[in-house]
């Protein structure tokens, strides 16, 4: 019997790793590590989870050990955050380039200095180019569900790439919400035994990652791009299948809330998109037709879905909990490019370093953006910073009137 349990996002992800029958977990236990691996350690020591926990000397080693175990043929998992993820960055490329399925949870947090342990998306969005699949949960249930699905997606022979589940630091990782835990038998039925393209083992000698001709190197990257393309289909299939087993549908890479009749779309990713939905409702009471488009997947980037949902709108207001300093938020850049900036595009960096953003804040800057579009016509504003109730255009040239 499935049961509803109150738990933090950290525990939800740890339980998902247990239900997926993960066999090896490697972690470096220091800030900014999360309670995910602590909980897994607890489940192992209580005998509830049959896995090996390797305590290593750094995050670089944590992912290297996880990836090594996975190369050896077992389902392996790790979790990290912020600086830990930065320290892993080299091994992220190695894992993806080796085509070894590995699943990792990233509790999204700011990168210092100064020191900050609260939510920001700089860390997870820095993984965009590495060849990992990247998803973002809106709530703890979704963090659990995406983790289970991620094993099946990454181990699909059409994909064979590692995957990250992102969940917002503190807002999800340390907040208690009801999470439905399924039966182990149902998860076993849903999740087939592990598959991977090759196993590093004695008896069949081979070298991984040695020097290859440049042309072959490029062809490997072309294959990864094709696999990302395949992953779009696999994510949809697996999400649909998940609904059959567990009653929650993940067949879409984006979530649209009241988008169909909307003139204005608020777009973004992560937990604050729940607040954006409330803000949309509040703005609708004021007569603005606002919808919300939440990116559940960052890689593969769901550009087709985005175009379908938002191409014909008057404006897209992109909430970015991250900034590519010197330009704009990464999601603003990706969405502007997918939409050819045909709607007015307004990027709103906000909530960086865990600054609290409520639905009232979102309603406030969204209304401001809408008024701007109504006054001036089509605009392109990469970074209209929202900070403590005020708008800060970061540089005058950013306010470009198009026609």
């Amino acid at each position, binding site marked *: 019997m499935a049961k509803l349990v109150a738990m933090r996002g950290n525990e939800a992800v740890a339980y998902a790793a247990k239900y997926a029958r993960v066999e090896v977990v490697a972690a470096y236990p220091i800030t900014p590590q999360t309670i995910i691996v602590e909980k897994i350690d607890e489940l192992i020591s209580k005998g509830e989870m049959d896995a090996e926990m390797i305590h290593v000397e750094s995050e670089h080693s944590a992912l290297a050990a996880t990836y090594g175990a996975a190369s050896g043929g077992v389902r392996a998992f790790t979790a990290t955050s912020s600086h830990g993820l930065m320290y892993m960055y080299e091994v992220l490329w190695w894992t993806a380039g080796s085509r070894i399925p590995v699943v990792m949870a990233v509790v999204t947090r700011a990168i210092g200095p100064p020191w900050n342990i609260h939510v920001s998306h700089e860390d997870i969005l820095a993984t965009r180019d590495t060849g990992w699949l990247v998803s973002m949960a809106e709530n703890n249930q979704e963090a659990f569900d995406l983790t289970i699905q991620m094993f099946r997606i990454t181990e699909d*022979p059409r994909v064979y790439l590692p995957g990250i589940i992102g969940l917002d630091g503190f807002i999800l990782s340390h907040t208690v919400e009801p999470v439905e835990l399924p039966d182990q038998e149902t998860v076993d039925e849903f999740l087939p035994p592990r598959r991977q393209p*090759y196993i590093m083992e004695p008896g069949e000698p081979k*070298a991984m990652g040695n020097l290859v001709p440049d042309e072959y190197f490029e062809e490997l990257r072309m294959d990864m791009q094709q696999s990302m393309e395949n992953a779009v289909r696999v994510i949809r299939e697996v999400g649909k299948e998940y609904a059959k087993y567990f009653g929650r549908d993940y067949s879409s890479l984006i979530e649209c809330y009241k988008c169909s009749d909307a003139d204005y779309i608020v777009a973004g990713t992560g937990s604050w998109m729940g607040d954006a939905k409330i803000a949309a409702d509040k703005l609708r009471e004021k007569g603005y037709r606002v919808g919300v488009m939440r990116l559940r997947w960052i890689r593969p980037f769901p550009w087709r879905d985005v175009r379908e949902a938002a191409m014909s709108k008057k404006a897209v207001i992109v909430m970015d909990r991250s900034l590519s300093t010197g330009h704009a938020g990464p999601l603003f850049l990706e969405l502007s490019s997918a939409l050819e900036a045909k709607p007015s595009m307004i990027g709103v960096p906000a909530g960086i370093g865990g600054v609290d953003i409520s639905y009232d804040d979102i309603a406030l800057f969204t209304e401001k953006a809408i008024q701007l579009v109504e006054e001036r016509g089509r605009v392109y504003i990469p970074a209209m910073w929202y900070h403590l109730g005020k708008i800060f255009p970061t540089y005058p040239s950013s306010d470009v009137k198009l026609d």
Partner: protein
Amino acid sequence: MSESRSRRSGLAVVDPGGHKLPLSLAGPGAMGKTGYWRTQRPVVNVEKCTGCYLCWLYCPDNVIEMVPGKGPRGQDIPVIDYEYCKGCGVCAAACPVKAIDMVDESKFLEKKG
């Protein structure tokens, strides 16, 4: 597991699903014919060679084969596979009787032309 069915097509190791993999299997030339990297060619003087096997032992690329009894004094002599020899000169440095000369590759090009 699909590994045993992995096939080698040209330089690429491809899994049954068609993914190209960053693997190389035991055998010559994962990087192709590396002989063209060479700027200097080791040339064996079989008159001087004593058949001691040191060049064979030291060659980092495993491109020296010892041919038994083919030397002028009936000694074993090294034969170098120039398709893969990168011309590093380790064999020449290791030879105790200086029986291997490193000759500029351009000399061989000139002869051809």
